[in-house]
């Protein structure tokens, strides 16, 4: 039940884009039409749902204070916390690479639609951000971290498809000349963020 709460929360309330601005770069660069932005969104959901639980295990059994105790009691006071950034980013890069190969081998159709986005994702802040927030929030099981990863990914997908749809329509309206392009995209995102704030009251216990 708690996993469901985390899932819903991470989609609507702690939305990656509107609450934390994570993954803004690709969010603004790739949101010119709905189809490509959907492709990128799905790739992000995929990668987040895989990397967050894996990094959770890594954090739980290798990195955090005293985590190595399962190897031998001698390691009980070892704290590898300072290696977090470098290991997380290495895991993310590796998983993205493996995922790209697997997808290319087994589902060429999916590869041709997702393929170009996968390399981009290794340096997408949404993935790294998701992993770091996971670490900060101290989830108590792999299931919870999985639902967090999945939910954040879906929230990101929702946001990018939403802005892409708006940007497709905005082409036909009279935006002041110097505000056209990215300027208006920023302001629209801000307004969408305000709209999303109305979910703040929802609690799942």
């Amino acid at each position, binding site marked *: 039940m708690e996993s469901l709460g985390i899932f819903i929360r991470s989609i609507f309330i702690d939305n990656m884009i509107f609450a934390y601005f994570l993954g*803004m770069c690709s969010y603004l660069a790739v949101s010119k039409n709905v189809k490509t932005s959907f492709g990128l969104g799905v790739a992000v959901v995929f990668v987040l749902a895989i990397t967050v639980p894996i990094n959770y295990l890594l954090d739980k059994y290798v990195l955090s204070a005293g985590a190595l105790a399962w190897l031998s009691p001698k390691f009980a006071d070892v704290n590898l916390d300072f290696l977090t950034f470098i290991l997380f980013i290495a895991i993310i890069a590796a998983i993205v690479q493996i995922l790209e190969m697997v997808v290319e081998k087994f589902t060429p159709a999916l590869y041709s639609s997702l393929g170009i986005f996968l390399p981009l994702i290794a*340096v997408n802040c949404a993935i790294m951000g998701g992993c770091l*927030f996971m670490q900060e929030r101290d989830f108590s099981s792999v299931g919870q971290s999985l639902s967090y990863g999945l939910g954040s990914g879906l929230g990101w997908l929702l946001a990018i498809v939403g802005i892409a749809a708006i940007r497709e329509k905005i082409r036909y309206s009279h935006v002041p000349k110097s505000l056209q392009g990215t*300027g208006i995209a920023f302001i629209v995102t801000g307004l969408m963020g305000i709209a999303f704030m109305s979910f703040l009251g929802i609690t799942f216990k």
Partner: protein
Amino acid sequence: MSKNLELLTAPLRKANPVTVLILGICSALAVTAKLKPALVMALSVTVVIALSNLVISLLRKGIPSKIRIIVQLIVIATLVILVDQFLKAFVYDVSKQLSVFVGLIITNCIVMGRLEAFAMANGPWESLLDGIGNGLGYGIILVIVAFFRELFGSGTLLGFQIIPEGLYNFGYMNNGLMILPPMALIIVGVIMWLQKPEEDKK
């Protein structure tokens, strides 16, 4: 000389990494609710960009192009760990406020972008200057956004009361919306709006 100066000043306006090239937005917005974390963040990013530019530029002849992304990530991650440990040691409260966003400097596209676009092709001295310039260009936007958000959102600057107490007695109120995330986006949008006509003139 003037070419080197150009490297330092171009990113401040003409080629500003945030408002013109649209890079590194993620962290630019999240840390700007108050001026102090914004300043610290700007400084940290400048240090990371400048040093990683320098290191990669020194190594550029030895890096095989196939694995260059991994090499760059490792260099950046190492520098970010240093910055993070430094912040934790000396300004612990700010480092708590910045939370995950220090770690996110690794995936800040400005850093990667400058390494790819500049440091891989230029000498160490130019790369260092370019890094500092871009860090400052990023910092200036952070400071502008944070200035408005803190002034109107909390009535303070760097924690000092700026809006006089008397004004509150007349019914002036802090704009709570300024503290919330969406306003950061709108302020950046407005900065772009103001900056664009100037560019077009040149």
